Structure formats: C-alpha cells, structure tokens
C-alpha cells in the first residue's frame, strides 16, 4: 500500500480528475480523504500500486491544471504512524465503511502496526 498526498485548488471536477487517474488504471482506492488545507485542498489516497504506477499517477496528477503539488507515493510500512492515514487507520476511522483492505486485510495490518 502507498500513500499519496495531493494538494489542489478545489475547482469543479479537480478531485474527480484525481480519482479518475486511478480508476482508469483499474486501481482501487480503499482510502480517500479530501479536506481543506490552508487556502487550498488536500486529498490523501491509499492504494496498492507498483513502482511504475507510482510514477505514472504522479505525473498524470501533476498534469491536472489545478493540482498544485503531488507528494509521491510512500509505502505505508515506511511511514507507519507518522502519516495522517496511518493515524486515521489506527484510530479506527470509519471511512470508507466497508473497506476490507483497511479494516481487516491481514497482509496490510502488520505493515501498519
């Protein structure tokens, strides 16, 4: 699992464009959190991607005109609880409600711990 942080201007459709870059590759996004961040917005995505996809996604996201900054993927096991996502997961955050990967995937949990 990799975590991406993307800072963007919250204009019409920008978040959808960000998500579509993953959808078009058939990549599931078991965790998505979008929120205001200073004067802009930030979305945090958690997804299972290989190294090639990390590069492709980062570049596709940056090509979206209202994306300001892409924080490239960091493997979850490398950031552990330092990331917002890890905190959210460890505190049992309910979003998304039915995410098997986040809630109970045995392969993922040890890495998060």
């Amino acid at each position, binding site marked *: 699992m990799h975590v991406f942080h993307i800072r963007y*201007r919250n204009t*019409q459709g920008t978040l959808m*464009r960000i998500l579509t870059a993953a959808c078009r590759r058939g990549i599931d996004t078991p965790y998505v959190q979008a929120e205001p961040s200073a004067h802009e917005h930030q979305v945090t995505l958690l997804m299972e991607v290989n190294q090639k996809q990390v*590069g492709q996604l980062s*570049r596709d996201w940056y090509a979206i005109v209202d994306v*300001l900054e892409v924080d490239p993927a960091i493997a979850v096991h490398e950031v552990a609880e330092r990331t917002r996502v890890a905190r959210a997961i460890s505190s049992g955050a309910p979003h998304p409600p039915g995410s098997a990967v986040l809630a109970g995937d045995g392969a993922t949990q040890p890495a998060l711990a």
Partner: protein
Amino acid sequence: MRKGSQIVLECLRAEGVDLVFGYPGGAIMPLYDALEGSGVRHILTRHEQGAVFAAEGYARVAGKVGVAMATSGPGATNLVTGIADAKMDSVPLVCITGQVRSALIGSDAFQETDVFGLTLSMTKWSRLVKSIQEIPAVIAEGFHWARSGRPGPVVIDIPTDLLKASMEFGGAVKFTPHQRPADTPAAPEFTDTLVAMLQQASKPVALVGAGAKLSGAIPELRQLLDRLNVPTFATVHGLGAVDPTVPYYLGMVGMHGTRAANTALHETDLLMVFGARLDDRVTGDPSRFAPDAKIVHFEIDPAQLDRVRPCQLAVMGDLAETIPAFHEELRRASLPDCSRWRAVACGPGRAELDPRGLAQPTIRFLDELFSRLPEDSVIVADVGQHQMWAAQRYHSDSARGFITSGGLGAMGFALPAAVGVQLAQPETTVLCVSGDGGIQMNIQELATIRRLGLPIKTVIIDNQYLGMVRQWQQLFYQRNYAETDLSDNPDFVEIAKAYRITGQRIHEEVMREFPVAAETGDQLDRFLRSREPELLVFDCHPEANVYPMVPAGAALSEMLFEEE
C-alpha cells in the same frame, strides 16, 4: 445589458476566434440566435463529429484554437471522439455545449447528458457554467488552458437559461494562471549533462515528434540537428519537422517505420527525444525498446516522462527555449566523431526496398500524386493502411503538411478535418486521403464541402476491406477475415455525383506501368489543379499490405517485410 449568448460570442472574438464549427439544437439555440452580426462565422457540418474534427483540422494547421459547438445530449456525445482525439494529439480545442436549463440538470431531462462528467478524463480542463457572471472568466480560462503548455481540449457546458439571461457586461477578461511549485523549466545546467552524455555515446540518435512543431521551434531544431549530425527520425506527427533531404534523416519510426529508422533506434546508445510521447506504436515492446540506450527527453508535459522507460535526463520546458540553450552549449563543445555509426545507420545497406508486391501500384499512385502537389500542400490522412502508406511516402519539409489522427486512430477523421484545413488555408491545395471504410464514417461532410465550394481533393483508396484490420487478420489470425469485408461498397463516384461533386476512378492496373502513362499523369494533374471539390477512387488490391511492419508486442528490430 447583454445576453449570455452575446457575451459568449464577444468573449470568443476577444480570444481571436472568427470561425467556429457546429450543429444547432435545442439547448444551444440561443447561441445560434446571436450569431448573426457577432463577427463569428459558423460552419454548419452535417454531424457533430464532423464539426469537432473540422475544428481540429483548423487548429492543427492554423496554430490557433479550434472551436466546435453542439447542443446538449446527443449533440455533445457526438463530440466525444473528437475531444479524445484532441487530447491524444495535443490539439488546442474548445468545445461549447448547450445544456438543459439549470433547474433541470440532474433530472434526466430531454436531451440531458452529464457532458462534464462524460468528458472529464479526456479534457485538459472543463466547466459546467453555473451563472451568467461566470461566462467571461470561464471562457478566458478555457482558452488559456487549451493553448498553453501541451495544448489540449476544453469543454464549456452552458445551460440554456444562462445563454438567455442578461447582465451588464464590461468586456472580456484576462486569465492569469496560478503558479505551481514544480512549474520550473529545466535548469540551465542540463546542457552540460547532455553534452557529457553525447561525448560518451558512440551511437547517438534523435527522435522528433509533434512537440517540435507545436513549439514553433522548427528552424532552431533543424539547426541543432545539423550540428548534431546524428541519425534522425520522426514519429507520424513529427513528419515534416525535419528536412527529409538531409543525409542523416531516416524517415518515420515505429510500427510501420522505415527499416533504417527502426534499426537505428534499436541499436542506439543515446536517444534524444524532442517532443514525442513515445507511445506503443513508436516503441514496440517497451521492455525491448532501445535496450542499450540512455534516454534524454525534451518535453513540456511532465505526464509524458518515463511512460515507457525511465529517462536518464528529462529536459522540461518549451522546446523553443530548451533547444536553443542546448545548441548554444554545443557551439562551445567538441563532439566525438560518430561518422562510422552514421555511415552504417544511414548507409545503403539499410536503404528502403523499392515498393513491391500487391501494394506496389498503390504506393506508386501515392508517389505520383504527392510528387504533383504544389509546395506547402496539406495532406490529411484518415486511419488505416492508406494512412501508413501516405505517411511512408510523405517526403515534404512542410511542418504542418501532414495531418492525421495519430494517437486515437479515429476513422472518419480526414474528410471533416480537411474542411477545417481548407478553411484555415483557402489558397492551399488540400488532399484528403481516406479509405473505403473511413470515408463512410463521415461521408456526409461532402455536403459541407459542396455548400462551401471548398476545392478539397478527396482520394479514396478502395480495397473493399477494412484493410488494416484485414492485414492483421491475415498475419495474426490465420486469414480469418471476420467482418472486414466491404466488397458491397457503394459506388463512391456515384455518391460524389449525388453531392454534386465530380468523381472519377483509377484502377491500380494503370500504376503497374512505370513510368506511368502520360494520360494518367495528366488525369492526376487535372484532379489536383481543379478549383472545385473533386473525388478520386483508387481501386487497390484487396490483399495489399503495409510493410515494414513491427507486430504488436514485438521489438522494433523484429520487422516484417513484404516477401518477394
């Protein structure tokens, strides 16, 4: 007070638009109602897809933003193929669609579609306008994104009630883009790195793509290539960027590229890419693409880097700036002698074989036709075998002289695109080369050509098959010609007559004679010199194939050739 429709048109004029292509309908009627006296000329095509392809053709040769208009629902969905095409081929395009009344959006109203959502993944930028006050800013921003950086398509969806509404209008506005932290061009030191890489290379090559043309840096590129003097080739969209007469030019690269270009690309140890995406039709099997090469990628769009293989040096920025910077550094540098490599790569041992086999008459026909074209003519090719034959035989140095749907490969592109090209360049000879499959996808645009009296020369290479698919079926599906037979084609000459366009036919037999008979040559001359729309059907052998060919998934070195 101005109506929303009037504001739209005034903003278009402020962006330099004087010509739009479209098809009216319910939701966009207010905009059509305001056209007269607006200073914007509207070209009525006979299908919305014709409108968007015509706008693309216009944009591709004029170097301006093409504009297409359509109504909501089916009008907008008919634009989608052209929008996708513009995205793939980096064409500056603005599509303005009417939408159902604001109050009805989301109610599945008559002729309502979610155009914004539908086109989200294929547009560079888009907006569903929510108030009349937004219109000036939205149009200014849309045009900015359509033409800036890597150009691309923009969709502006305007509910019909906003087109009818009125407000005080102080004039068009300017858009100022926001700055992004990573929007920094290549550091000047890239030239040192690149020169060092060149000095270590023994088999350097240069690959030129559409980006070189879009940057407007063709003279600078040619000077640079002269200085480099390394084997050079072009993608299908890069054709014309390099003077084809220079000794280091090897022609088109890729699936149907030349033997010399593909071989050199496979053998190189330093690949310099100037404004090309490196898509799979250029690379063949990515894992075996230029296996020994370091890659230097000059590119304006960060999304195009490392798609196939990681590049060792990414030179981000407009080629109009990075090429001169590189050239300047080269003036001070000494480069290693790569004359032996050049002699092999560009030598007679890899020269193209003379046309042979079943395709020989068709290739000869295109050679005869192209050789008679006035300088600076524009060839607009559709998609299929004829497209590749035409690309292979295109030997002009006119940078915007070969137009085709390259990335999307959209059949039906050529005829309406030729309309846009001819309107952009009224005095230019425009030759539309299509196939019997592709022409029938937008054949209704003959009516547009007739109404406008455009002297477009349309050639149909008629092999009574969906030829490229049939070729693949022959080579890779044991000749199972499933659903590619078009032997019951209509008589295209009679169809042309029905549109009051002169039609004629040439059978491939006349091209077996070489040199061709004088009367055949005269026929081609008359065809090209006419100031009227003309259509010429060339009867091609049904099983003629395009060679060389790199099979899908093979390496560039694994080309197939026509058997003796």
